[in-house]
């Protein structure tokens, strides 16, 4: 088929697809949340003010565990495929040339890390959570790498060790999730008291999961970014 023919066919099919979807999805404004089981009892059952966190790390923790597995496998895959081909230039400590970048990076690094930590710690009370907090932290480290050079950062976070830590934390998370069976409860049950709703120490196991996931994602993000930087040979 010629490319024009493909283009015409594509336009026809895609627009028909869109029209079909729009016509059949009988959208008439969202339903109210009155009959929603999560809204009815979510906060008191999980102890998390942020219902999204409550669902994410309590009601549907099973999904989140597997999602974490996907993330870890992606990190593993990126490292496996990028690092196997030995980078021809071992010294990648090239610092960003423009002083503006350095100063901006210096200035932004602290606040970004702070935001990351805040998202993790208060994930059950306000929007945020382990995943977004960890990703923000990892991205902050990229800024640091841009200012100081990736090698400097990498030396602080020794690769082999942080990888062990990353997987160790994943192990901890699963063990923690499976642990209730030793107390004769179903796996993934929240054993801790949910505490007074709205306080920092509430939400049962949710803050613990948030913390562990946060550290894990933080490391994972950095490993991905560092693998890309190393493969590229400069920042």
């Amino acid at each position, binding site marked *: 088929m010629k490319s024009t023919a493909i283009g015409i066919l594509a336009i026809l099919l895609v627009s028909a697809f869109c029209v079909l979807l729009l016509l059949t999805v009988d959208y008439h404004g969202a339903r109210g949340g009155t009959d929603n089981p999560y809204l009815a009892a979510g906060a008191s059952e999980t102890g998390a003010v942020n219902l999204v966190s409550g669902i994410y790390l309590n009601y549907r923790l099973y999904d989140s565990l*597997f999602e974490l597995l996907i993330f870890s496998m992606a990190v593993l895959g990126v490292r496996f495929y990028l690092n196997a081909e030995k980078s021809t230039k071992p010294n990648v400590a090239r610092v960003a040339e423009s002083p503006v970048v350095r100063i901006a990076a210096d200035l932004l690094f602290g606040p970004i890390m702070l935001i990351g930590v805040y998202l993790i710690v208060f994930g059950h009370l306000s929007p945020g959570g382990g995943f977004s907090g960890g990703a923000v932290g990892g991205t902050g480290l990229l800024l640091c790498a841009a200012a100081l050079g990736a090698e400097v950062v990498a030396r602080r976070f020794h690769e082999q060790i942080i990888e062990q830590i990353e997987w160790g934390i994943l192990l901890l998370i699963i063990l923690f999730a499976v642990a209730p069976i030793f107390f004769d409860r179903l796996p*993934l049950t929240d054993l801790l008291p949910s505490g007074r709703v709205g306080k920092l120490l509430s939400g049962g196991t949710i803050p613990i999961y948030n913390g562990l996931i946060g550290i894990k994602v933080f490391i994972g993000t950095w490993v991905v970014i560092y693998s890309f930087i190393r493969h590229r040979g400069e920042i």
Partner: protein
Amino acid sequence: MIIALLPLGHFLIGVLSLLWQRGARRILPFALLIDVALIGSLWSRVAGGTSVSLVLGGWGRDLGIELVADKISLGFSFLALLLTLAVTVYLWRERQRPYFYVLLHFLLASVFALVFARDLFNIYVIIEILTLVSFLLVGYERKARQIWASLNYLILAALGMAMYLFGVGIIYYHTGTLNLTLLGERIAGMQDQLWLITASTLLVVGVSIKAGVFVFSLWLPAAHASASPAVSALLSGLVIKMGVVVLFRLSTVLDISLPLIVLGGITGVVGAVYTMFTYELKRMLAFSTLSQVGYLLVGIGIGTPLAIAGSLTYGVAHGLSKGLLFLAAGQVVNTTGSAFISEQVARQEKIPRATRIALFVGTLSIIGLPPLVGFCAKGLLSAATDSLPLHLLLVFVSLGTVVAFSKLTPLLNPRYGCSDERAKAISYGILALPIFAFLPASFLFVSWIQVLSWLGPLQAGESVAIIGAGFLVYLVLRGHPVRLPQRIFRLEEAILLILAVFFATFFLLAGSV
């Protein structure tokens, strides 16, 4: 509780073997042993036809994620165990990187999670893991061809899963639940609603891309043919079946039987034609997987208990034989150094004897020679099909398979042969034994009285007749190679085709209610 432990346990062991890389290879057999024990104890609870259900975290069905074990999930769990064991033994001597074993554990974890899953979004997450694992496994040796096949696979799979997510969104918006059981209750009597038809189409199309349904799975031949033999065996034998399992789960709730029959028919016929006229061993096996998936879908689409039993038995049977064939084919390609059957025939003195026997057994099973497991499953399925056109369709697919696999007959010359590595021979044995012992495999889904009452001399006669006829057709066709269009396997054309068949599926669904 055991239901949750199977996936989570493998998840855990996978992480453990990553942390303790030197032991990764040796942990795997022990883990499999534990699995056998766990599945065995579950089996005793579902054997009577009941199912075991568990909502994680102790919540209600409307809040938490439900896992359900029934005979079908356990049957496929057994298939997963056998295939993994065979692959591990097959690769025992060629020390793989620990990475490989970690991926195997994660593959098992996701397979167990999927066969028990009863939640639309949970299925989404687990299918994505399967995508990721197969993606990493296909490109594992880092050959450019594999990487390209993997990338095509990933792009199409991601497109499919986005469609699936749209479907999930529509369903949740209208019903407020993701649990399949609850969903079934809530949509009762709503089958003619347009939104439900669209959502069903989106779900079916999304999963079909993973399941090896012809028009949706144009990535499959390249990926399965270019991966290393062990990986191909796992992908073809196991991962594809997982898509079929999900389609089956959906079909119990949504009314999708007509599209399944039509898509299955197309898949079967086109797959059979491509199998007949492909002269590259592993690519031919990959196409044969397509045609057999057609079989499975037709069975699920017919929807009577017998048809479903036949179809899912066939799923397990095909997993075993295709696994065996891919492992043996890998050895054939390795020893002769050629991917094409004609050149392999020319150098066949290099093919070890055990490999030859394995190839022979796998072929016999896949063409449905009584009393192997392939025959058993095909017989059940054909007994369940009472409409004539469908029956003819199944006969055609079987015929195509026989014609295609007759190409292997020159390879099976018993005069030649040298001895094989012991590990390889054992791994063939692991898969070949259940093929011979057909009865246990079919008992998984149907009681043995039913099996014996349905599989009479009529079925056996039909099967043998098909094999004979197929061989004759092969003899006629032998000298006339045919080149079939390969362009549809390009990424762009594949997406166009997927869209086109999306509409076909939609109108089939709309027409059937």
